[in-house]
């Protein structure tokens, strides 16, 4: 199997610096939640539903200084080609969940909502690489839809390294074979709020991989922004009439 052909084409026909088809919708579940979103990054599909800020059920969850974020990550049994039951207490899941919670604890203006709980439920319907990135993007959109104050968008993207060439937005096949870097960028800056690299990559190549991943994140941020604005315009035109 050839992941990157000499002509510069990848397994799904993209060039090295192209992202997959990115579709996003916000306010997908207006009746059951305060904020919701749906994201497709290639074949990775994630639904995110936000409840809150609300009064926490447990006293222990109330923090008198800032809001508590609670993320529930559930990966559907049918999300991969091989059907597999996944437990929420798996170490990998706990790590992803904690990573998301801690990332957003900083990007959301939690100090504005003391003694409240913001519950975020993520449902991964289909996995094809870049699950953490898709979850981050879905969470950003759903929180925006819920009207929770944030400093800026957190846009996440993956990038990998094939031999000497950095590849943007890895799909599942590529992710299995190459080392993948996931980053989350705040708005249009070069500030990284999320960082995850799980396999070996030469130190001297880090810069090029990081650069393309940041550029990709900025692109994703623009795409998410245009969806938020499109939705905003529909709403405001309804209000006007």
């Amino acid at each position: 199997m050839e992941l990157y052909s000499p002509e510069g084409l990848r397994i799904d026909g993209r060039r090295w610096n192209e992202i997959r088809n990115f579709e996003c919708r916000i306010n997908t579940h207006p009746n059951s939640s305060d904020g919701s979103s749906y994201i497709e990054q290639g074949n990775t599909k994630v639904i995110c539903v936000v409840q809150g800020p609300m009064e926490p059920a447990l006293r222990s969850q109330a923090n008198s200084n800032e809001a508590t974020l609670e993320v529930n990550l559930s990966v559907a049994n049918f999300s991969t080609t091989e059907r597999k039951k996944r437990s929420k207490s798996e170490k990998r899941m706990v790590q992803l969940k904690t990573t998301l919670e801690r990332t957003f604890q900083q990007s959301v203006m939690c100090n504005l909502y003391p003694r409240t709980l913001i519950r975020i439920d993520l449902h991964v319907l289909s996995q094809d690489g870049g699950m953490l990135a898709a979850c981050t993007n879905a969470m950003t959109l759903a929180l925006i839809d819920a009207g929770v104050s944030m400093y800026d968008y957190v846009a996440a993207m993956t990038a990998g390294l094939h031999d000497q060439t950095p590849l943007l937005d890895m799909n599942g096949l590529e992710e299995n074979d190459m080392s993948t870097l996931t980053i989350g960028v705040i708005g249009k800056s070069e500030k990284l709020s999320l960082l995850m690299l799980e396999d070996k990559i030469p130190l001297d190549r880090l810069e090029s991989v990081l650069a393309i991943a940041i550029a990709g994140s900025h692109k994703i941020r623009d795409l998410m922004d245009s969806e938020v604005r499109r939705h905003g315009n529909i709403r405001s035109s309804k209000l006007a009439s």
Partner: protein
Amino acid sequence: MSRNTEISTNERTYFIEALKCGLRLDSRRFDEIREPQISLSKTEFGYVELDWGLTKLAVRVSAQIGKPYEDRPFEGLFQINCEISSMAWAHFDNSKNSNEEILIARIIEKAIRRSNSLDLEALCIIAGEKVWNITVDLNFLNFDGNFVDVGCFGAMLALHHFKKPDISIVNGGEDIIVHDIDERQPVPLSILHVPICLTYSFYNPGNKESNLKGEDDDEIYLLDANLIEEQVREGSIVVTLNKNRELIQLSKNGGIPISANVLLDLSFKSMKIVDELTELIKKVISKHEKERYEELNLKMLEVGADR
């Protein structure tokens, strides 16, 4: 979690003010690690105690013979257990696996296991039937910050120190004989590379909002934070590297964002410390081997070696 482990506001302000003046409370430089004190067990293989500042860790490596996974008949089994109890610090609770503990264990595991630093195929005895099952148990005895770096270093040290009994296969591959370590010299594990984790903690003395938006870059980075530094920190990143200039893991779980340039800068700077620590493991182990060699009078047994 007991309340009295929390740090007071006065201590916090004092600490941050000191940082702004370029000082750490234990007078280290910002990018200086605490000197590790190593004691290797003289009597058994694979038991190491490590003092890293006041953080204290005991590592025990053990080997058993087990059956390999069906989809990987040629590979041995290798696992890392992380035991963090309230003995180390009252903040940790004994009852269930806290998120903190899982995170620490997983970062260490990813650094060592997923990067294939241990040659698993060398642990195979009979393909599909019998393989070595190597277990590393990390027991934290006292906590003064930086479990990840200490845990990873301790585990690699213990793996270097460990030796498994020699084995011979008889009856045309049907049976095996495990030789007692007094009967035949035990064999060391084959270690492909030495991953070293370095944790940087960061602090933002300025305005949070302008920092998040990337308008100013005045964060302070500390390597190898101790307990107070770890409690006050606003974010951290673990960089795992080896001597071959390979980046094995980057892990940033929340906290204030860092700029890409700083990240690159930190990873390049880390190489020097990685080289030093790798060298330290090699040095300590070879010194220990030499002492053992002399103590056991192995020279007398080498009959034909010098001919």
